[in-house]
């Protein structure tokens, strides 16, 4: 019982957008689908949704090829948001839900409930273009879930929202999870991934870079980090001189470093005490997903970064 992606590849003209990508999303889980801009996420998502077809490989949902899955099963919140600006909220959402095959009466019932929940009942007869950005995003969210899809694919569902609205949508998101929906969640906010996702995959340049459960991924980073804070010596300059220690971050509140042989945690602790340090923090931590993400995909030139504008200099007329 899962969404199974097996060895899919897709090329456009002379760009290979996805190469030999495989992943598995279990039914009912929240799956983090991560990658830098231009990594091939949108292309992969479109292939999952059967909007475009892979050149090779296959995608199945519970054993059936996605080409045979009714559209009603899918809910898609694209990264690029869009609604009909001149249509009112009610008409818009009813129209979309009916395209997915829902009857009008059922949609209306569902809609009443959700608008209430999102506190936008008063806007239901307003044109979408008259709504605030946050409210537009709530409508967009509803457009994705109103037809009760089995699989939700949400690209950056919480971006651009204030903390209150983030919580509101996060609750709805978790509600979907409780209702047993399978959610594929794409974001650049790694804290959200750590908070919400069971399994993740990170792709880059159309290929799988890291996959597994969040915990596995962190462990597989093959190292742990140590955080140390001394009340009377915030910079802890002597750490640089200890063999096997490599500093990763020097923050105002602590210093973070990797340990390798011959250094051990005991040795560091002893050294700190010997030097008369007042220890306020000593922690053995896993690296954050953010670090792993940057480490694994960072530094690689990204394909769709815009070309820097030509320098504006006097006498540079063409």
């Amino acid at each position: 019982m899962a969404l199974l992606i097996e060895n899919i590849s897709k090329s456009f003209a002379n760009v290979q957008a996805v190469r030999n990508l495989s992943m598995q999303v279990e039914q009912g889980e929240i799956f983090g689908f991560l990658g830098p801009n231009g990594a091939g996420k949108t292309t992969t998502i479109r292939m999952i949704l059967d909007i475009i077809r892979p050149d090779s490989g296959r995608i199945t949902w519970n054993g059936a090829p996605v080409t045979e899955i009714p559209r009603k099963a899918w809910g898609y919140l694209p990264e690029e948001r869009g609604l009909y600006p001149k249509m009112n909220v009610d008409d818009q959402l009813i129209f979309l839900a009916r395209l997915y095959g829902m009857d009008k009466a059922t949609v209306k019932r569902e809609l009443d409930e959700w608008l209430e929940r999102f506190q936008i009942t008063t806007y239901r007869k307003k044109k979408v273009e008259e709504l605030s950005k946050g409210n537009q995003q709530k409508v967009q969210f509803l457009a994705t879930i109103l037809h009760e899809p089995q699989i939700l694919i949400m690209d950056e569902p919480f971006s651009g929202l204030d903390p209150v609205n983030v919580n509101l949508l996060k609750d709805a998101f978790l509600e979907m999870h409780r209702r047993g929906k399978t959610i594929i969640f794409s974001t650049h906010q790694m804290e959200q991934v750590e908070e919400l996702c069971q399994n993740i995959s990170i792709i880059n340049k159309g290929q799988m870079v890291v996959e597994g459960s969040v915990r596995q991924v962190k462990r597989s980073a093959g190292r742990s980090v140590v955080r140390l804070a001394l009340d009377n010596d915030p910079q802890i300059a002597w750490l640089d001189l200890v063999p096997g220690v490599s500093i990763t971050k020097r923050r105002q509140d602590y210093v973070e470093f990797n340990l390798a042989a011959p250094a051990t945690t005991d040795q560091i602790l002893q050294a700190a005490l010997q030097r008369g340090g007042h220890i306020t923090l000593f922690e053995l931590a896993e690296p954050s997903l953010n670090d792993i993400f940057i480490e694994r995909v960072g530094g690689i030139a990204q394909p769709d970064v815009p070309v820097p504008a030509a320098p504006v200099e006097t006498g540079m007329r063409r």
Partner: protein
Amino acid sequence: MAFLKEKKNLTEGSAGNEAQVVVASSNHAAGQNARNIPLIIAREYKARVQKRSFQVGTIILVVLVIVAAFVPTIIQLISSNSQSKIVVVNRASQVAGLEPVAYLDTQLNTTITATGQIQPTAPGKKKDFDIKAAQPGDLKSLQQQVRDGKLDGLLVINRAASGELNFEYFSNGSPTGATATRIQAATTQLNFLDKLGRLGIPQSQLNTLFQSPNLSVTSASDEKSGRSAEETGAATLVVTLGIILIFTTILQYGATVAQGAVEEKSNRIMEIMINAATPFQLMIGKIIGIGLAGLTQIAALAVAGVIAFLVQDPLKSVILGNATGGTRIDITGLSIGLLGLVVLYFILGFLLYGTLYAAVGSLISRQEDVQTALTPLTFLFMAGYFISLFSLGATDALWVKVLSFVPFFTPTLMLSRAGISNLAWWEVPASIVIMLISIVIFTWLAGRIYRAGVLMYGQKPSMGRLVKLALSR
């Protein structure tokens, strides 16, 4: 419509770094044509009809149609109120045994019937001239009345010592004006009768001298087409208005189709729509929905026009006291049939051009580029329009006959031929079949372009690309 193959070979040598994202056309939503297309049609239709600009525009056009329909009546109303008051001072006593004042009254107040016969104005109808006799002694005061504008003219009939009649006409009007011309004609007759009378021609023969001859007029072109003059007039009017209506409506609503496709792309609703429906459904729904909005406008204009036309006669009889005269147009089976053809050819023409507009629109990603991209299409359409207007005078020419079967020109050209000359029974059905076939072909081609275009951003559409996309596997 399963023409999507597993492997797509879209590689173009010169394409550079472009990504051609061709949407799968056979996905599960394709099985929902029956459900999705009506929903999309309804949305597109409502979106246009609910627009303030559509409503205001339609109201303005309806008002214009009604005003235009009433113009002949209004002109007639104005002209019928002007009756020329002429006073005749007769110093010649009898002329050829006739009373000159009474004679002028009957001669000046005549009407020409539809068949070309001259008849005295029927009793009860308003006369063109109000002729009154006056005494020679009042001449000074009568002249003053003309100067003051109380009288339109003063006619004095004198007889010279030689026995010849002479006339003096005193008026405010121009000596070459319509009234003066008719006075001149009447006085010429009077003079003629007088001379013949003095030559001794008997009274009884003089009476019949100026009776209008028995002349029957037949138009060769009407005879050929088997139509009456009124029918031909109505047909020409319907055809001319029909061509203009078809042209402007397709041009306007075709651009709306292109704009609609661009809008969906530029505000990114396409990303969602493409998950719920297929590009083909979106395209067809858009063309039909917007076409129906255009048809609604045409229907509103037609209803307004027909009603305005039908109330003309009752209205005339109320305000003018008569119901005939003015522009005579006979609404017969012929012009009703032509109206049907106008609607039919509009629908067919819109479907054909709509597919082209949709295909071009799907390739553009910014509103600003719409006009530029549509220019070639507009030229194609303009060509058809001008040929049609030009063909009104040459409907029997061979090149007009040939072009009227070319689908892009059929709606206007076949219409003008049907209205003005006699078609063989098979010509209209044949043109409809040809149009239907080309609509199917162009819908198919445009559908292929559309599904490649809807997710393509930032590239300029060119004719070459259009053809390439339509023909690519």
